[in-house]
C-alpha cells in the first residue's frame, strides 16, 4: 500500500464520508474542523490531553499476553490490549476527553451526546463532570431498559439522560435525536459524537483520538516480542475502537487486520448489525457509508445482543478500508459472542464487554488456524460488568 492519507480536504475516504448535513450545521462543522486543526498543532493542547490520558484515564493500558487462552487453543499467541482498564471501563473516554477539551477551546459550555450501551454516555458525562460542562445524553428507551445502571451512572455524574422512543429506541434513534438537539442548539453546544461516524470532521477526530490504542499496541508488542503482530482483531459497530487500533497499522502490510461485526441471530436472517458484511452503500447521519437499508433507501433496524454494536451504519473509513481490501470484515453471532464472553472470563479472569466478546470469538476461530509462532492482538475494548445481568438472564433463558 502506498502512503495512506485519508481523509481528503472534503472529508472523503475514497468514495465514502463527506458532510451530508443541513446547512444549519455546516458552520459548526467548519468551526470544529478549524479548531481541531489548530489544536493538533498546539503543544499546549497535546500536553493537556496527554496529562488527562495518563493521570486521569490511567494510560497506557497494558498489552497482556493471554497465556491460558493461548494454551487452551494451541494456536497463535493471543495478546489482549486492555482498553477495559481505562477509567469508566472502555475505550470511549479516549475520545470524549479530547472532544471535551475541544469544546472548551471553542468557548462552548454545553455538550450533547448519544449513547447505545451507555459506555459513550458515561464517558461523556464523566469528562463533563471533570471539566465542568453541561451534559445531555440521548439514549434509546430499549437501551435504557437494557442498561439501567449506566443511566444511573450518568445521572450521578450530573448528566441529564433523555429517553428516545422513536424508531426502535436504540442507538440510531439516539443519534437522530442528538443531531436534532444539536440543530436546535448549535450556537452554544458541541456534539460529542461517540464513534467514527457522522459528518466530517467527526470520523477523523474520533479516529485520531482513539489511535492512541494502536500506537501503544505497536510499541508494546515490539518491546515484548521484538516484532509486529500477524493479526489484529477488533469489533466494529460504528467502529471507533477498531479504527483507533487499525490506523497505526494501516501501512504495515504484513499485519492482517480483522473487523468483527455483530452477526446477531446470523447474517442470513434480518436480525443482525453486520453492515459491511451484508449491507449496501447509502447516506446516513451525514456520511456516505455502508448501511442496512431496504430497496427504497429506508434505514433498517440493526439487531445485536450487544447494545454498543446495534447500529445500522458504520464509519466511512471502514467502508474505504473494506473497498481497499486492507481490512477483512467478518461477523460473529450473539451465540458465539456469549460463548467467548464465558471462555475469556474462565481462562483469564477477564470479563469482556459483549462488544469486545465478538472480537474474542473471532480470535478463537482464527488462532487455531495459525502457527504457534504467530501472534494475534485483540482489542479488548471494554469490560463486561455492564453486561453481567443481561448475560445471566440470557443464559437462564429469561
Amino acid at each position, binding site marked *: 500500500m502506498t502512503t495512506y492519507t485519508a481523509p481528503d480536504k*472534503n472529508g472523503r475516504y475514497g468514495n465514502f464520508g*463527506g*458532510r*451530508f*448535513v*443541513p*446547512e*444549519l*450545521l*455546516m*458552520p*459548526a462543522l467548519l468551526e470544529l474542523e478549524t479548531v481541531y486543526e489548530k489544536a493538533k498543532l498546539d503543544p499546549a493542547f497535546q500536553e493537556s490531553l496527554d496529562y488527562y490520558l495518563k493521570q486521569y484515564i490511567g494510560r497506557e493500558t497494558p498489552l497482556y499476553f493471554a497465556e491460558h487462552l493461548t494454551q487452551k487453543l494451541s494456536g497463535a499467541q493471543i495478546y489482549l490490549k486492555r482498553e477495559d482498564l481505562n477509567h469508566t471501563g472502555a475505550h470511549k473516554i479516549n475520545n470524549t476527553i479530547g472532544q471535551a477539551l475541544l469544546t472548551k477551546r471553542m468557548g462552548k459550555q454545553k455538550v450533547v451526546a448519544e449513547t447505545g450501551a451507555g459506555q459513550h454516555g458515561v464517558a461523556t458525562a464523566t469528562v463533563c463532570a471533570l471539566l465542568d460542562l453541561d451534559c445531555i445524553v440521548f439514549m434509546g428507551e430499549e437501551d435504557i431498559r437494557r442498561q439501567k445502571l449506566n443511566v444511573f451512572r450518568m445521572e450521578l455524574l450530573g448528566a441529564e439522560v433523555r429517553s428516545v422512543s*422513536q*424508531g426502535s429506541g436504540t442507538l*440510531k434513534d439516539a443519534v*437522530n435525536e442528538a*443531531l*436534532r438537539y444539536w*440543530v*436546535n442548539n*448549535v*450556537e452554544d453546544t458541541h456534539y460529542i459524537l461517540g464513534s467514527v461516524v457522522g459528518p466530517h470532521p467527526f470520523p477523523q477526530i474520533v479516529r485520531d483520538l482513539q489511535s492512541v490504542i494502536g500506537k501503544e499496541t505497536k510499541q508494546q508488542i515490539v518491546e515484548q516480542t521484538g516484532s509486529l503482530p500477524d493479526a489484529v482483531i477488533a469489533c466494529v459497530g460504528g467502529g471507533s475502537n477498531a479504527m483507533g487500533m487499525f490506523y497505526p497499522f494501516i501501512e504495515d502490510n504484513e499485519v492482517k487486520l480483522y473487523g468483527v461485526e455483530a452477526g446477531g441471530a446470523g447474517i442470513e436472517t434480518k436480525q443482525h448489525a453486520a453492515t459491511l458484511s451484508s449491507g449496501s*452503500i*447509502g*447516506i*446516513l*447521519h*451525514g456520511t456516505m457509508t455502508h*448501511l442496512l*437499508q431496504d*430497496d*427504497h*433507501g*429506508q*434505514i433498517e433496524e440493526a439487531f445485536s445482543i450487544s447494545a454498543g454494536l446495534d447500529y445500522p451504519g458504520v464509519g466511512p473509513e471502514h467502508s474505504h478500508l473494506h473497498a481497499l481490501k486492507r481490512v477483512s470484515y467478518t461477523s460473529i453471532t450473539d451465540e458465539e459472542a456469549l460463548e467467548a464472553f464465558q471462555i475469556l472470563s474462565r481462562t483469564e479472569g477477564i470479563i469482556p464487554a459483549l462488544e469486545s466478546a465478538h472480537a474474542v470469538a473471532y480470535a478463537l476461530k482464527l488462532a487455531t488456524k495459525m502457527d504457534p509462532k504467530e501472534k494475534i492482538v485483540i482489542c479488548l475494548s471494554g469490560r463486561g460488568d455492564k453486561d453481567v445481568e443481561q448475560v445471566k438472564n440470557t443464559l437462564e433463558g429469561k
Partner: protein
Amino acid sequence: MGKANMENYFKQKQSKGDNLFVPYIMAGDGGLEVLKERVLFLQDCGVAAIEIGIPFSDPVADGPTIQAAGKRALENGTTLSGVLKALQAFKDERKVPIILMTYVNPVYRYGLASFAQDCAIAGVDGVIVPDIPIEEEKFIADELQSESLAFIRLAALTSTKDRLIEIAERSEGFLYAVAVTGTTGAREAYGDEVKAYLEMLKSNSSVPVLAGFGVSTPEQAQTLSSYCDGVIVGSTIVEFFHRGDTEKIQQLIQDTTHPAIIG
C-alpha cells in the same frame, strides 16, 4: 416544466402583488390516494408552488409534526417511486409548480440520473434536499441540471455572510431561507436578526426568497413576507390536513397571500 415554469409562475403571482405561499405536504400521509385531491385543493387556494415531502426513516431536520406524518406515510407503504408515479398520473391537471423535498438517501438508492429523469416525466419542477449543503451539491446538481429541474438551496441563520452570498448567488427557483436555528415545527416569534438576514438574502438573490421553518400563524406569515417574497409553511399545513381542517388551510393561504384584505 422545470425551473423555467416555476420562475414564470412566481412572476405571474408577484405581478398581481401577491405574497408567495408555498405549503408543504407529506406524500402518503392519509394514503397516496389523497395526494391528487390535496394538490388540486392547494392549487385552487392560489398557492405559488407545492412542496411534497418524501418520507424517510431518519428525518434529522424535522420536528415532531413532520416526523409523525412521515412515520404514518411509511406505515402506509409510501415509496419515492410510488409518489413519482402518482404525480405523473395527474400531471395534466396541474399548473402549480411541484417541488419534491427528500433526504438524500432515498434518492441515492433510486439512482441519481433515474431520479432526475423520472421527476421530469412526473412533472416535478424542482427538488430540495435538506441534507446536501453546497459542499456536497455536485453530488446531485448536474443530474438535476440536465433535466432543467430547479435545485433549491437552503440558507441558514447560522451561515456566515460569505456563505449566504454564495448560496444566494447559486439559487435556482427560489431561495429557501430557514428562519430559525432549529428543526421544522411551530415557533412563537422571529427576532430582528431574521429581518436583517432575509433582507440580505433578498439583495443577493436573483430568484424569490421564501422564509420557512416555524411559520404557523397568518401574523408570522405576513411579517416574514414583508421582509422577503413569501413563506413556506410545513408542520401547520400537515397538521391541518391530518385533522381534516381544510378551511383553516384556505384561510391561512388567503390571509398570507393577500394581507391587504385583513390588513
